[in-house]
């Protein structure tokens, strides 16, 4: 009953004209970003971050969240019609969605993707609402050792699930930590890595780093190669799946939702991984696994539901523990900090308008996305025809101007340019960028908690292992490190024998 009261309060916040408009803008931009291949939600949120400084913290998070889960909806359109995923999380949708389109069933493929996303998105918001409060109550027991262990676990998770080399992912985490040390030492105001730039006293800002790493470098990486966008010539009709489609897809949607939601709460296990796992599960559980890859509707329904549920589930660690589980959520974390709001267990108590407003806006957002996705599919198809030669230069200008507008000084623009070059080179040398951003965002928090723990214990490291929560979390982190590093050493040994 209490939750219902909170939810009604949340709706009163979300229904304020300004917030309602921001949900709409967020969902619209998110869908657009999802539709356009090459520009992901991380880059988009990074570019739009400076614009949110002019609006309230509630409005800012409502809009950024809308972009994030909206992009999951939009990604399926290009997967089905172009065989090019608009988003990484929609890669799996190409396997069966495009095959369905080739067979003249683009409509039902897009329809089940939209309905599955809506059902998963809505059920996940219920999950978020129910789980967030007890989790934040539990997190109130956390002291500096517990926080240190949880942050280390989060970074271990994101490195473990890294797309490329685990060693490189850990290296990026270290670079992120180093960058988080730029500025005055929080304990004794000692200047660290400032090199005479007093504007850096408060440390590096997340926005120029993220815009450079994800915005500029992503655009340039897209400009260097010409991707042909051939939309299949099929009429998108009968968007409503048939009764048989529903019968085949209903359990896939439910399984995708549950799996996506819970896995989405784990750092590094975002919408991309959940959609792949859902596809694997559906194929394994299917009575006709041979149909997968040939246009099985379960192969679209499951992953599309999972990636949406995962996007919502990811808000749980951010809003309850103050630990962002992915690079996108790290940017939303950064937006909250820049607005003077500290994400963590006290967020629900101290900023109920923000928490319940955002949760309620997600219900509205999912409804808006269903409306936006189905009737507007012909419009999104037209959007795909906007030439990249026009789009990418405009994005570059927005990166530069957006960056300047953060503090109205050129230093942020210079920093963004440096990180643009660095981000591009890191992509070329196959380094994953999310661990860097996550470690940068959490670095200050980790340092403060480790130092506090050591001060409390007078330098005794057993403080981290004598408390049940931190001990359990450290054991988990240790196991993950071992699990990720052992295969690496095995490979080295094997190659060594060859040498």
């Amino acid at each position, binding site marked *: 009953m209490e939750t219902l009261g909170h939810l009604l309060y949340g709706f009163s916040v979300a229904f304020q004209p300004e917030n309602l408009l921001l949900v709409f803008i967020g969902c619209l931009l998110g869908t657009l970003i999802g539709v356009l291949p090459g520009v992901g939600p991380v880059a988009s949120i990074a570019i739009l971050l400076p*614009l949110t400084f002019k609006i309230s913290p509630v409005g800012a998070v409502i809009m950024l969240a809308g972009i994030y889960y909206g992009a999951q909806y939009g990604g399926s359109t290009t997967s089905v019609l172009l065989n090019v995923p608009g988003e990484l999380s929609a890669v799996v949708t190409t396997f069966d969605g495009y095959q369905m389109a080739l067979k003249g069933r683009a409509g039902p493929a897009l329809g089940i993707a939209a309905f599955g996303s809506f059902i998963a998105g809505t059920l996940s918001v219920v999950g978020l609402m129910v789980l967030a409060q007890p989790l934040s109550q539990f997190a109130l027991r956390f002291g500096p050792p517990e926080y240190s262990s949880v942050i280390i676990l989060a970074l271990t998770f994101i490195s473990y699930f890294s797309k490329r080399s685990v060693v490189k992912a850990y290296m990026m985490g270290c670079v992120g930590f180093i960058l988080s040390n730029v500025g005055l030492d929080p304990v004794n105001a000692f200047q660290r890595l400032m090199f005479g730039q007093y504007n850096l006293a408060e440390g590096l800002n997340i926005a120029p780093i993220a815009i450079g790493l994800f915005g500029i470098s992503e655009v340039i990486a897209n400009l260097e190669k010409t991707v042909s966008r051939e939309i299949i010539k099929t009429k998108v009709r009968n968007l409503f799946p048939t009764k048989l489609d529903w019968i085949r897809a209903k359990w896939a949607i439910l399984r995708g939702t549950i799996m996506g939601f819970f896995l989405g709460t784990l750092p590094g296990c975002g919408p991309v991984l959940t959609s792949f796992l859902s596809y694997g599960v559906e194929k394994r559980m299917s009575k006709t696994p041979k149909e997968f890859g040939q246009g099985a509707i379960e192969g679209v329904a499951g992953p599309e539901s999972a990636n949406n549920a995962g996007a919502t589930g990811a808000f749980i660690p951010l809003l309850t523990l103050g630990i962002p589980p992915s690079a996108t959520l790290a940017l939303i974390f950064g937006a909250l900090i820049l607005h003077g709001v500290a994400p963590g267990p006290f967020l629900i108590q101290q900023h109920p308008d923000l928490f319940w407003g955002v949760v309620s806006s997600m219900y509205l957002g999912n409804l808006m996305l269903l409306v936006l996705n189905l009737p507007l599919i012909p419009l999104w198809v037209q959007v795909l025809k906007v030439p990249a030669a026009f789009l990418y230069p405009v994005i570059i200008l927005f990166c530069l101007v957006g960056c300047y507008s953060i503090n109205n000084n050129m230093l942020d623009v210079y920093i963004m340019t440096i990180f643009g070059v660095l981000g591009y080179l890191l992509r070329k040398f196959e380094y994953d960028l999310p661990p860097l951003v996550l470690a940068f965002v959490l670095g200050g928090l980790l340092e403060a908690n480790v130092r506090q723990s050591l001060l409390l214990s007078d330098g005794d490291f057993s403080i981290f292992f004598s408390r049940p929560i931190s001990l359990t979390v450290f054991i988990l982190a240790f196991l993950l490190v071992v699990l990720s590093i052992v295969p690496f050493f095995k490979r080295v040994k094997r190659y060594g024998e060859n040498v």
Partner: protein
Amino acid sequence: MRCLMERDIISGFFWLAFAVFIGSRAVSYGVGSFSRPAAGSFLFVTSILLGGLSLLLIISALLRKTNKVRSSEIWKGLDRKIVVGVFVAIIIYDLLLPILGYLLTSFSLMMTLFCMTRKKVLSTIPYALLTTVLSYLLFEVFLGVPFPKGLFGF
């Protein structure tokens, strides 16, 4: 010699050098003790970790017999001119913005970028003009961002 051009070896050495530099800075800030960690303690530990991981990367790349990726292969089949051109244009934009002001610099940047991607100079003028004016209206007029005025006052 070929082995030295391997991608992971190049990046590994870069991060190793970076780790050594950061480690030396950390020592100069003071590392302190376990009971009283000083300003450089966290940086020092992180630099050791980064250095260790870099060495691991280099060793694994040296031992690798298959799947070697030489640095020259990274750029294979890609339009390198456009990459260098865009970065140079951005750097020049950064330098000229405070001197020439927002409108002129942004228009020049958009012209340059559109010419690089569209290759048709005349047809890019209206696009460049429109983008510059719209961004000016959004940021300066609507959001109140005070752009640099430059030598010409606009």
